[in-house]
């Protein structure tokens, strides 16, 4: 058995035609242990959703491999055997937009019972109904009778997102990819949703890959887990959440934490800034040489950072960083 429930090995994903190709994800590797929460954070276009889709098996990597309980998900010929079905049932995804991800012409009961019946997880509709009621209770939609025969449009955004979570839970997954699952939900509802998802981890042992652009949400949800920071297609820092938040080592992580507006006037107005050399995010069509962050990096060293691409190296027990300067300071050969 592998140490990890799910593992990404050197994932690469390209999009486009032969004439014009972009590499959206460029060599991403990490592993998630059973019961762990890993947050993938980064700005729009950094490849975090693409990575999530590959991990969830919705997108085939151009090269690289996803391993589920140590077994490769993608076979060379692309055939989908028994293992693939196990993977599909074990891994679920919750999408960002609760308005687009639920079928508008189906009732909540229909939405939730379909996978149960399809995968024969319920022998008959009676059993399915019992299970649907149980699921709605787990995600906090009660009294259940108020929701069973409603259509998605009759629910609020927060309630719909709870239905999305319930749907992911129908097949008793071990692993859930939550892609910006709370981003479209109002502040007052958000915490309830996050707490509910955290309870699933505690009570059902669900493992999460939680994708978000919101550092505050990442910190709250993955406080006992780890955060991976992505920039232009690769992970630049991967560390335990308190370490990353309190003492980021990669210049990009530092810049993000220094720039993020905080819901606390004194804290946010007295932050130490990190001045970047450029505000422009590089185009995927014309990636910078060497370290992708070097044109913006305040610690840029000519002849090093623009020549050699830094590898993601372990700098201490629980932290990986892809930066020549940080590696040197930690006494690690990059």
């Amino acid at each position, binding site marked *: 058995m592998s140490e990890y429930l799910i593992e990404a090995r050197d994932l690469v994903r390209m999009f486009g035609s032969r004439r014009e190709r972009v590499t959206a994800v460029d060599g991403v590797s990490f592993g998630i242990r059973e019961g762990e929460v890993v947050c993938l954070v980064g*700005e*729009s276009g950094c490849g975090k959703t693409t990575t999530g889709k590959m991990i969830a098996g919705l997108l085939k990597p151009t090269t690289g491999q996803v391993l589920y309980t140590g077994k490769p998900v993608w076979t060379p010929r692309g055939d989908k055997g028994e293992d693939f079905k196990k993977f599909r049932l074990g891994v679920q995804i919750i999408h960002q937009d609760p308005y687009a991800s639920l079928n508008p012409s189906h009732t909540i009961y229909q939405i939730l019972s379909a996978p149960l019946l399809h995968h024969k997880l319920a022998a008959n509709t009676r059993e399915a109904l019992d299970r649907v009621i149980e699921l709605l209770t787990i995600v906090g939609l009660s009294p259940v009778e108020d929701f069973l025969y409603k259509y998605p449009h009759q629910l*609020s955004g*927060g*309630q719909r997102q709870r239905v999305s979570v319930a749907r992911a839970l129908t097949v008793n997954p071990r692993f859930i990819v939550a892609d910006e699952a709370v981003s479209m939900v*109002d*502040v*007052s*509802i*958000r*915490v*309830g949703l*996050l*707490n509910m998802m955290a309870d699933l981890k505690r009570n059902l042992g669900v493992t999460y890959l939680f994708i978000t*652009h919101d*550092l*505050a*949400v990442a*910190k*709250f949800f993955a*406080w006992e887990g780890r955060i991976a920071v992505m920039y232009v297609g690769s992970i630049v820092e991967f560390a335990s959440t*308190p370490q990353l*938040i*309190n003492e980021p080592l990669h210049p990009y992580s530092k*810049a*993000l*934490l220094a*720039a*993020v*507006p*905080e*819901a*606390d*006037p*004194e*804290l*946010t*107005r*007295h*932050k130490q800034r990190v001045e*970047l050399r450029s*505000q422009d*995010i590089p185009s995927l069509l014309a990636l910078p040489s060497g370290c992708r962050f070097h044109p913006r990096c305040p610690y840029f060293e000519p002849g090093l950072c623009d020549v050699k691409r830094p590898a993601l190296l372990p700098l201490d027990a629980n932290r990986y960083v892809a930066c020549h300067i940080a590696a040197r300071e930690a006494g690690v050969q990059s």
Partner: protein
Amino acid sequence: MENKVASASKVADASKSKVPLTVEDLWVEYKIERGVVKAVRGVSFELARGESLALIGESGCGKTTLGVALIRLLVKAARIPKGEITYWRGNQGIDVLSLKERELRRFRWRECAMVFQSALNAFNPVLRIWDQILDTSKAHGGMPRQQVRERAMQLLEYVQLDPKRVIDAYPHELSGGMRQRVLLAMSLLLDPQVLILDEPTTALDILTQRTIIDLLRRLKDEIGFAMLFISHDLATAAELADRVATMYAGSIVEVGPVADIFYRPAHPYTLGLIRAVPTVTGEFEKLISIPGAPPDLVAPPPGCKFHPRCPYATERCLAEEPKLEAHYGETHSVACFNVRRVQEDTHDLQERYQRYMGGKTL
């Protein structure tokens, strides 16, 4: 309903010319099939020169409707049954609600410009930036072409863009942050006194958000106009606001200086919002969610509109709607019967303030 905001009336007495915008008991309704949506219910406030007021609240609380009503760009289904909106230039007041269409067009953008949410949709995709700037200038009774061009170039440079590259570009050629900056530049074209920003940093990435926030702060300090920004994001308010007004179900339920709102909130809803939003680099805190959901504005609950979700609610809250009244001194007003009990639960926030401020209390 009388909703007098203590702080603002004081400013108004000092000198009208320092208060470019006053709003009195404003109501906005939408007619829909099911009935009448009371989107804005008796809102009063004043905006001083050089000040930034943040209007915070969740989706559907009426904050965008209020913003749009201030420049009378409401959709046809909307009606203003009651209220007054006055812009002051020197001692001369302009009664916005009685302006005719032509006057209105001159008034918009010269007195008050609005930067709309979603920088992508605010542009016409088939026109170059320059043509859109020219259109704006023409529509609102602008200047000669050459002068517009010069001013546009200056403004684009001012918002830290390369004017030569941007002015002849199409909107899709610009990134989200660049578009937001172009919109800001356009809003300044006719030198308005009041700038309304609807969710100015929403949907932008962190580093881009930071440049926009820094830019807005600079604009406010250097140009000194009054800024009203509408946001669901407490962090933006914490960054940019001098004063914060919390909106719930169409009314302002609390308004006060930014430090008051964040460190000694007096309305249960404001406190609820603060408790529900984590900071990133601050201490790790347990968060508390607000139970329930915002009310249906067609058939809102009786009494205080927040009472079904409020942990402090009493019998009185069910029967009577509290008015916005001065609380801490004259600058901080709140609409709640249970302020004292709410206050008792904010000691940790006040302590946090003291820690940041080296022992200073609010």
